[in-house]
């Protein structure tokens, strides 16, 4: 379970997160909605351990592990997966090599045997088929020359391969057409289960039609100002964030 208490963080001296309290029990999917600049992406980066953010207070634990004291790769090995809003391009790094290196690094840390190139290809091909991804994407540089939709699907593919315990989806719906959105949502829904939890960060309610969350939280100005069931997302879609602000 992901447990965040009183988390505050700043960037370049400017406070972005002003005390976040949040619990995502194992097996649940929670959505975080909020207007631009509310701190949604900061929260996802802070949980994944990106440099440049100063944690000024609070704690974040995942299955009892103190996330904030861990290196990014240690968090990944512990099962935290961030689907990037803007997946990074890695020219010259082949997608297959990248995926296998990541998979084996995580398997190693769990004490599981590494997969060889053949096993990996079999595994990757199966997942790619599910995500309707062309096989030549494995040969290309990571995200290089990928369309916006392809990049997002590549993120979902990585999630499917790495089998994380917690997936943080940072605006995975942005830049996706409806078909790609469904594929991405199917990828997440396929992961649902007693050992999987997810934090779906989104600006719009649209994605939540396909990934139905157990809980919805509204993040505004660095704080969670409202929480509720799936109906809250619909309510926001109709009334807008300003209504929440006014309330």
């Amino acid at each position, binding site marked *: 379970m992901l447990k965040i208490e009183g988390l505050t963080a700043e960037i370049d001296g400017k406070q972005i997160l002003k005390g976040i309290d949040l619990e995502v029990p194992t097996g649940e999917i929670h959505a975080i909605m909020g207007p631009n600049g509310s701190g949604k992406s900061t929260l996802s980066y802070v949980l994944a351990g990106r440099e440049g953010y100063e944690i000024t207070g609070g704690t974040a634990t995942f299955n009892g592990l103190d996330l904030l004291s861990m290196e990014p*790769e240690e968090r*990944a090995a512990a099962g935290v997966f961030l689907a990037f809003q803007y*997946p990074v391009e890695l*020219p010259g790094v082949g997608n297959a090599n*990248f995926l296998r290196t990541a998979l084996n690094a*995580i398997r190693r840390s769990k004490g599981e045997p590494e997969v060889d190139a053949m096993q990996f290809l079999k595994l990757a091909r199966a997942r790619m088929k599910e995500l309707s991804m062309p096989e030549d994407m494995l040969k290309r*540089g990571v995200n290089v020359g990928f369309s916006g939709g392809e990049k997002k699907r590549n993120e979902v593919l990585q999630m499917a391969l790495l089998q994380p315990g917690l997936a943080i989806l940072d605006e995975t719906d942005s830049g996706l057409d409806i078909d790609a959105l469904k594929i991405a949502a199917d990828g997440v829904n396929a992961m649902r289960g007693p050992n999987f939890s997810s934090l779906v960060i989104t600006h719009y309610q649209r994605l939540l039609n396909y990934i139905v969350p157990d809980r919805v939280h509204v993040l505004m100005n660095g704080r969670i100002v409202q929480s509720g069931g799936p109906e809250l997302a619909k309510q926001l879609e109709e009334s807008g964030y300003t209504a929440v602000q006014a309330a």
Partner: protein
Amino acid sequence: MSVLFEPGPEGFLRRYEGLNARLPGHRTPWVTALREQAAKAFREQGFPTRKIEAWHYTDLNLLARSGFAEALTPVDEDVALPEATAPQRVVFLDGRFRADLAETPDSGIPVRSLGANLSAAEGLLGGVAKLDEVPMAALNTMLFEDGALIDLPAETNGGAIELLSIIQSGERPVAVHPRHVIRLGKGASLVLIERAIGRGDGRYLHNPVVEIVLEEGAHLTHARIQQEGPAGLFLSTVFAKAAAGATYDSFLLHAGAKLSRSEAYVSLDGPKAMAHLNGAQLLSDGQHGDCTTFLDHAAPDCASRQTVKTVLAGKSRGVFQGKIHVHQIAQRTDGYQMNQALLLSDQAEIDSKPQLEIYADDVKCSHGATVGELDEDQLFYLRARGIPAATARSMLIEAFLQEAVDAVEEETARNALATAVAGWWEKVA
């Protein structure tokens, strides 16, 4: 036991004076005239100093201060050879052609010792070299003893050949000046992998000069792999000219040596000629690498491509200088040049000087240069997928170099280069 000759240009000149009655071709007037001309040019220029703009970033003080001796390697000395990178191989040990070590398959082409076949090189040797502008080439011309002579007839596919030069170094610093002369007849093609390997950790000078003539439609892939010893000084020069429709596809790798500078003077003399001047420099603590190229577009409709990457670790210094000169006649030139440097250490230094000199208006020429460290976003992305920091760094360095090596289309050459760079990033990541 030979003594060291005195340091500086004087030492080499005196050595020439003492030796010229014994050098190969000393009874052949055109050879002695060429050597005399070279000696004059070298006497006038001496070693280049940093006052010369093209040498501003590379200091030859270490060379100028050192005294050298001649290599006294027995003609039949045994030596362990690394695995060959091409089906055919010729070997030079301490500068001397060793026919006994060559590997020649049935399909092989004739590769001759230049020293023993000078008469066959008349008109070729010294035909492309610019002795008055390049003192290191003048020095080489003055003192060369041997090298490879490849004169491929028209429409011949010469396959792939490795020219392996091994220099053994110890307490006595030796100077070796190999000279290779290569001509590809009309429509002929060849893959040439020129490899320089140092054995031992003593100081030495390796000063090879390659002269290349590509006739109409000829195609040469030329991979140069420098893996000299840690105290070696590698100063190499390539002169190449390409006739109409010919392609000079080259790749330079600097991986070893204390100090290395490779200069290439390439002239596209006929319409639709093409040049690739790619390269990579892998520099670790204490190394200085300099890749300097001069490309002349001297005919219309030619194209050139250049990507040079330098990775710098520890206290190392890298230099890239690339000049593209488009003559007035060279309309419709298509030139592209990119050089990138990756700094892995606070003590690394890079100097980069791409240069366009354009006198024709209907041209498409561009260049780009970037200098920086490993990208933080990329590192984070890899680590967020569970890849440890050191592995992530090494993957990104590999990727950076891979892009350069991938530019080599010919498979044998690309594989040779890939093997030579492989694993380097793990040492420095």
